[in-house]
């Protein structure tokens, strides 16, 4: 009975980890990719060229374009280019145009003309997938939030289960089968624990308004917009007065923001009722400016007179806590080297889940090492392990290959890229069903190795943004993508060669089981 609690926690860890591990692996992997969302988008739309940043000029360009093309619209959105994002994006509500009554364009900041970029969702797809799971709203968000809760549960139960958390803090013993997997799982879980805890807890904070809305609903009923307006110090724009009044020059408002908050970088600008006497212009500070994701860092101007109407309220302690968790999760503030660390910690989180899934199966396979056939439920777990891990990597590769190979003008092009992702994933599941475990792993990893290693070549052949151009021009986002793909490919090739070369698992495990304990200890010393 002494071990009762710890055993119960171990049971919970094992089974919640198995049931949600497959989905969590996908969430963690795509979430990790999202740390390079803008860079992936840059690679996916090589037609959008980056220019030196000039906010005043960009704002003028955006305003001119919107005045010429969206004068009839009630709401404009402008997203400013930044160090990581080459595009100047403008959008406007237009009941007669665009999908869902919304038109968005990417402008070139030098010519002021829309860029004819290939239709692709780029990094946005992986970002959206990691919390919406391609499911209809709001089910994807609910499911991914629940997964985040399970991850947090897995971490806490894992800490309780791990008996020698300090004694084996620095311990990793490779080449010893199950022992090494457990060491690796533990070490990568414990050493990167602050990141794991932060990322899973902050996911819950990010969706707390959805998960625990009772407090808001008790005070505001169904008018939750009013709650957020109160919280972030925003006011709803008044109705258009139908009195035509020219909109003030946005660059002049930008200068006012700079006077109020010197050095502030601007992320988004929203213009309501442009060209009306009741126009409102809201500048929101770039999330890259603070560690905390301060949604209240904004300034609202009267678009007719240019007078400052309101600015974000100072945050309370509770708000700052929530904003800090949100900011830490998204890592918008991170410069290049910290962003890479975020990426590697994300990979570490993915690896904790992956090693856990592999161990669950490995442990139980040992019991059936001598029999010819694996029980059906273990085979099911094996197939799902393969499809959810190496299959997902193939799906990601499929997305990028589709991005380069799909003709430019195809209707619904960006949807077909997403379809390529899911088709590749589905095919990998079929492949995993048809082939034996180790072969399926090896073949899928080998294919993944090929797909990722050849991506830079494909990029060089299909665009003029290959490594031979991006490196001399110092286009590090483009070159970094290609080199990361190459590195990923080489890593997968190494994994594949391990899988394809070693003897069949059954024979190997049987041999190990047959070994005398004395030889085992002799090996260890």
């Amino acid at each position: 009975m002494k071990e009762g609690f710890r055993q119960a926690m171990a049971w919970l860890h094992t089974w919640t980890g198995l049931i949600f591990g497959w989905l969590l692996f996908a969430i963690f992997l795509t979430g990790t990719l999202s740390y390079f969302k803008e860079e992936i988008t840059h690679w996916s739309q090589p037609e959008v060229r980056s220019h030196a940043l000039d906010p005043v000029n960009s704002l003028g360009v955006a305003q001119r374009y919107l005045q010429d093309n969206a004068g009839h619209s009630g709401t404009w959105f402008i997203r400013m280019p930044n160090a990581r994002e080459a595009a100047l994006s403008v959008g406007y509500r237009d009941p007669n145009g665009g999908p869902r009554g919304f038109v968005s364009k990417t402008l070139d900041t030098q010519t002021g003309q829309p860029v004819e970029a290939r239709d692709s969702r780029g990094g946005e797809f992986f970002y959206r997938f990691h919390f919406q799971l391609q499911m209809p709203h709001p089910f994807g968000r609910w499911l991914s939030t629940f997964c985040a809760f399970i991850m947090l549960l897995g971490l806490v139960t894992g800490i309780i289960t791990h008996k020698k958390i300090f004694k084996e803090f620095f311990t990793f013993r490779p080449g010893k089968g199950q022992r090494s997997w457990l060491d690796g799982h533990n070490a990568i879980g414990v050493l990167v624990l602050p990141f794991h805890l932060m990322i899973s807890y902050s996911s819950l904070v990010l969706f707390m308004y959805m998960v625990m809305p009772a407090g808001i609903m008790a005070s505001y009923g169904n008018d939750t917009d009013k709650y957020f307006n109160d919280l972030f110090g925003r006011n709803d724009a008044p109705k258009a007065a139908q009195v035509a009044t020219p909109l003030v020059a946005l660059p002049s408002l930008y200068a006012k923001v700079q006077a109020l908050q010197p050095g502030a970088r601007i992320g988004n600008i929203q213009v309501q009722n442009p060209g009306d006497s009741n126009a409102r212009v809201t500048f929101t500070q770039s999330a890259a400016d603070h560690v905390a994701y301060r949604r209240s860092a904004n300034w609202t101007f009267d678009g007719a007179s240019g007078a400052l109407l309101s600015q974000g309220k100072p945050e309370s302690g509770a708000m700052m806590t929530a904003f800090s968790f949100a900011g830490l999760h998204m890592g918008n503030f991170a410069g290049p080297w910290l962003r890479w660390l975020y990426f590697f910690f994300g990979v570490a989180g993915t690896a904790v889940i992956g090693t856990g899934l592999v161990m669950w199966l490995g442990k139980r396979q040992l019991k059936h090492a001598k029999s010819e056939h694996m029980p059906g439920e273990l085979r099911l777990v094996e197939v799902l392990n393969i499809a959810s891990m190496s299959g997902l990597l193939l799906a990601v590769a499929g997305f990028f290959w589709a991005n380069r190979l799909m003709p430019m003008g195809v209707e619904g092009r960006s949807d077909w890229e997403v379809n390529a992702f899911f088709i590749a994933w589905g095919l990998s599941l079929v492949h995993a069903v048809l082939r034996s475990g180790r072969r399926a792993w090896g073949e899928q990893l080998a294919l993944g190795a090929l797909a990722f290693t050849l991506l830079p070549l494909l990029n060089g052949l299909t665009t003029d943004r290959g490594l031979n151009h991006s490196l001399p021009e110092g286009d590090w986002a483009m070159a970094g993508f290609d080199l990361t793909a190459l590195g990923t490919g080489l890593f997968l090739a190494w994994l594949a060669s391990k899988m394809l070369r070693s003897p069949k698992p059954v024979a190997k495990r049987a041999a190990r089981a047959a070994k005398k304990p004395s030889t085992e200890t002799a090996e260890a010393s």
Partner: protein
Amino acid sequence: MLGNALIAFAGFVALCLAMEKHFSDLLGRKPRPGQLRLLRVVGWLLLMLSLALSVHLRGWAHGLVEWTAVTMAGVTLWVFGLPYQPRLLLGLAAASGVLGPLLAVFAV
């Protein structure tokens, strides 16, 4: 920040060597009395020093985040590299102990 990263790395290595098993495995001899305690104190001091420097240089918000990040990265590199390249990593740790403070002083 590289200076802080190296100091933190040296700190964790000292804490690792402060465990008798790792000390004798890595250095090939039994620790003398008091050596483990000294290593433990030095390790914690180095970690605290890098934290203080990080906060001093980058402020609380960025300082804490960056310190946590480089510390985790350093110790992960140590633990997973150790079975393969123990001598290289020990050398790196020794170099970090010297280079880290130097970089931290001159990069201010």
